[in-house]
């Protein structure tokens, strides 16, 4: 009975993982395919990588996407942190419930609605004050900040609630004025959440296709927009090469983060054991 069930679980796990990873493995393999037609195997080759590196269109899309992602992540983290602080540390202020609801609304709003409403907003703004005359970097960035800020605010709120207020009280008790408490205690306490919030906003922006498609203008192609528009004309091997590079970069980043975290944890553990031994 027990053995049977565990075999069932193993099969389910294998199937689940296979469903998840086989497409990615196929993608990587096909990126090395010489043939111009994706499903036809024409032997191993780096042809599409070479073509990819020579394509100005791809590189301008990568550069635009990265620029938007960095600016978006930075602003979203700053604004989201302020919103999170207001929610957790300002006590009960008038309109707190409404504010909290409005803060998380972008999380549940369909992207099509967000994108469409932002487009309408930018068009009317252009008619009113003559800006933005052209949609592109600025409009996409603003659109991304509006929704990724909500994700950051949620992350920050969770961390603030988690760490509690005792350290801030201790700092105030030792004579630190409110602004000093914020910079010397609260912000350093929030560092892990700030980093993960920033990374989250960065990824959300890099990933977004729907909202960016609404608020972009002629000539401003982000990477997802470019990939999607090319795919519409049929599968293309150079896109496979691009995707493989992205997978590699992400894998390296995750591995580095894991190694750093593991080392830190081990060092902390050793220090604590040493302290306990010294005392006894």
């Amino acid at each position, binding site marked *: 009975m027990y053995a049977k069930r565990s075999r069932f679980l193993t099969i389910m796990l294998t199937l689940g993982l296979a469903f998840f990873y086989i497409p990615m493995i196929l993608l990587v393999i096909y990126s090395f395919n010489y043939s111009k037609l994706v499903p036809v195997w024409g032997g191993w080759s780096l042809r599409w990588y070479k073509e990819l590196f020579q394509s100005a269109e791809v590189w301008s899309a990568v550069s635009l996407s990265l620029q938007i992602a960095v600016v978006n992540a930075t602003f979203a983290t700053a604004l989201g942190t302020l919103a999170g602080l207001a929610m957790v540390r300002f006590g009960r202020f008038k309109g707190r419930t409404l504010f909290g609801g409005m803060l998380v609304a972008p999380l549940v709003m369909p992207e099509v609605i967000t994108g469409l409403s932002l487009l309408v907003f930018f068009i009317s703004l252009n008619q009113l004050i003559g800006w933005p005359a052209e949609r592109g970097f600025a409009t996409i960035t603003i659109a991304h900040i509006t929704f990724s800020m909500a994700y950051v605010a949620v992350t920050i709120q969770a961390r603030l609630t988690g760490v509690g207020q005792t350290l801030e009280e201790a700092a105030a*008790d030792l004579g630190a004025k409110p602004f000093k408490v914020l910079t010397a205690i609260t912000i350093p306490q929030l560092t892990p959440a700030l980093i993960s919030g920033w990374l989250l906003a960065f990824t959300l922006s890099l990933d977004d296709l729907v909202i960016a498609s609404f608020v972009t203008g002629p000539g401003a192609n982000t990477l997802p927009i470019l990939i999607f528009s090319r795919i519409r004309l049929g599968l293309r091997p150079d896109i496979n090469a691009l995707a493989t590079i992205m997978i590699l970069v992400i894998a390296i980043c995750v591995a580095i983060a894991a190694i750093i975290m593991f080392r830190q944890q081990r060092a902390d553990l050793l220090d604590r054991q040493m302290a306990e031994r010294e*005392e006894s």
Partner: protein
Amino acid sequence: MTVSTAVSPEPWLDQKEQEPLVKIRGVTKKYGAVTAVDNVDLDIYKGELFCLLGGSGCGKSTLLRMLAGFEDLNSGTITIDGVDMADVPAYERPTNMMFQSYALFPHMTVEKNVAFGLEQDHVPKLDIADRVHDILKLVELEDFKKRKPKQLSGGQRQRVALARALVKRPKLLLLDEPLAALDKKLRKQTQFELANIQDKVGVTFIVVTHDQEEAMTLSSRMAVMDAGRFKQIGTPTEIYEFPESRFVADFIGSANIFEGRVTEDGVDHVRVETEFCEVYIDHGHSVKAGSKIWVALRPEKIRLEKSDTIAEGANQTAAVIDDVGYLGETSIYKVRLPNGEIFDVTQPNQSRPTHAAQRLTWEDKVNISWDPSSAMLLHS
């Protein structure tokens, strides 16, 4: 560190000569419908080590947080060294607090943690270094100043927290369950250290604790709190030997409490009639003859003798041993009185029992008795 100027060892007795350092008047704190602190008054004098003792939710921590400036008062005033604290924010109060969780800043070294308070006051850098060094020496942590809090053991963290709270030489140090996070052995040792340090630096301490033994060992005076009010304020001896209510008698140590009626109320003695014997108390009490009161007897103040004859007269009665608990240094006897009530009696095991016959055991007939000074009258 500053050494306290000559103060009377019992400043609360000569109130005319000394102004209290802390004056709490009619302080009330409500959380919604719950009253955490209910209209309390308290004076604390310079150099005292005052304990607020009570169970969880009795309002002791709330009172401490109001002194620190973390909670607003609903009504009443708190005055520290003659200054009304109503409009003084936490960061400007002459108090420092040692938190139950220690609240050490995890991203700063021990040295930086201790220096933090001095930096806020813009003390010159060289002075900061000196003062940090001195205070770390006092708590025997000079060798640990470059460590982060997570690299310290529980006892070391506790001492860093104490050093950080003391380094600013506050007029008043507030300690929230300072020993609760330590293991039992370390706690006992630290109790005495804490009292020694207080003696050395001469700062007034207010300690919140739920541990009655801790309160008894540490404090010059203590207040027993329940449901937001003070049940009794006094020295540990006063609280233990002269409790005023059943709550205090039962909360501090253990006590056998029984009902009685006052039959005679003399200037220097009181007689109380109870269900099993007459209780004679050899000092005066403000009670009315005929009124119903309670009497409490501490288990260690009752004598126990094996006897077949039935005891008669005041302050003694026959009883039967119902249960025996051997604790090593002492034994606890549960004795059944003629009316069925069970008393706890503790006896020191002064000699090794060599014969089984010497030992008191189940169903032995005994006499219990106590001194005329031992019984305690409780009004409520």
